[in-house]
């Protein structure tokens, strides 16, 4: 079982590299890093860093996982896979984990350029990985509502804005939503990142619980809908 999953995961990375996603993501991160390094003297860049993490690496998961599925559907690859004794959980997990790991590495790259090693790397990695996983799963869920990528991209704008930018605006202090913020799926991960880079006091119990609840919930929702709308049709 592990071999099958390991093999799927390896091939997902091969596919990502074949489509230049890994190389371009690293290049983009290096360029952001360079700019952030230049800007480090203008004051604290913590908020800019968090805004970038929420709007760049998380996008890798959301859009590229959906784009990969649309391309596999268009070229009848998924249809071929579905008639083999494959395990949909393996396919799902391998896709989500591969893009999320890339997103996490890019997020870490951004943080290193701003903070050096002066931040809590472990919690930051957990927070950014969780955001990437959640956005990938949301991408898998949302793609079932459109039959091609550009439509998906358009319908995604309000969804992705709500998913990422509402918590971001709350974090930036544009508005205060009180306890309502707890229903934002990425709030726990965002708190962990905030704590890691700025040392802000957070409720760890809530942050961990939020991640532990929302990731399985998103997985379940995406899996069920994918099974019904893509695999069975």
């Amino acid at each position, binding site marked *: 079982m592990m071999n099958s999953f390991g093999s799927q995961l390896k091939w997902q990375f091969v596919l990502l590299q074949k489509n*230049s*996603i890994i190389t371009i993501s690293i290049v983009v991160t290096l*360029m952001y890093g360079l700019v952030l390094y230049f*800007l480090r003297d203008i004051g604290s860049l913590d908020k800019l860093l968090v805004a970038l993490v929420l709007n760049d690496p998380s*996008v890798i998961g959301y859009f*590229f996982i959906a784009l990969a599925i649309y391309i596999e559907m268009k070229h009848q690859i998924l249809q071929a896979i579905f008639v083999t004794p494959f395990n949909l959980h393996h396919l799902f997990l391998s896709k989500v984990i591969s893009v999320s790991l890339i997103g996490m590495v890019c997020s870490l790259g951004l943080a290193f350029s701003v903070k050096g090693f002066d931040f809590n790397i472990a919690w930051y990695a957990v927070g950014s990985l969780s955001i990437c996983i959640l956005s990938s799963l949301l991408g898998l869920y949302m793609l079932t509502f459109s039959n091609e990528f550009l*439509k998906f991209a358009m319908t995604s704008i309000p969804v992705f804005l709500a998913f990422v930018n509402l918590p971001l605006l709350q974090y930036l202090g544009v508005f205060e939503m009180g306890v309502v913020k707890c229903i934002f799926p990425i709030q726990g991960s965002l708190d962990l990142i905030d704590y890691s880079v700025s040392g802000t006091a957070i409720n760890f119990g809530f942050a961990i619980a939020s991640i532990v609840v929302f990731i399985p919930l998103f997985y379940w929702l995406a899996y069920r809908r994918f099974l019904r709308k893509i695999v069975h049709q």
Partner: protein
Amino acid sequence: MKKIFKLAFTDFKLIFRDPSLRSFLVLPVIVFALIIWAVPPLIEKYAILAPYLSLFLVIGVIENTQMFCFISSMVLIDEKESDVAKVYGVVPLNKMEYILSRFLIPYLFTVVLNLVLLSVQTICEVSVLAILLISFLAALVVPVYALAINSMVQNRMQGMVYIKAFNMLVLIPVAAFFVPEKFVHLFGFFPTHWVFQAIDKATQNLSIGLFATIGFVFFLILLWWVSRTFVRKHFV
């Protein structure tokens, strides 16, 4: 020239046949709404934004160019994926005429968008000459962007990856607004830097001649270079 116009209009109609591409035409409306109705009250409310007035125009102008950067890139990638590009390779137009026909309307459309945006906005006062120069200069982003992407990518997946990277390259010179004066032109390696600096000078009622000239020369050299690369790679 008649053939070029005919192909240009036929090509432009493609966008309206594809509902998913058509929906991207709404993006400038969002940019206009933000610049005309959302930004002025924000500036009034938050004095901290006062030093960055030109930045709002920079973002508005460059976002107007992004619509056709995306649409033209996707249309050309689609043609490559579906092998239609090979058919275009044998039409009775030379390759440069083909490129002109594909980008004539997107370029002019983008020029008009920015002419209107810069004329109706109330954030800063910009002279008519500056508006004209900035609009014609900024719209050059469209062909350079789309041709460069299509010179590099083989499929839609790679296309989207490169679009993400190119969006960042286009916007990166915004950072020049936040660095000390002596470092500003370190961002001059990016062609959009000269557009942004021209807008900045225009909003201060200073001459934009130098920056606009550098921008035009930079973009036209890039355009010539990416056009040659595109012609070599797109039709095979």
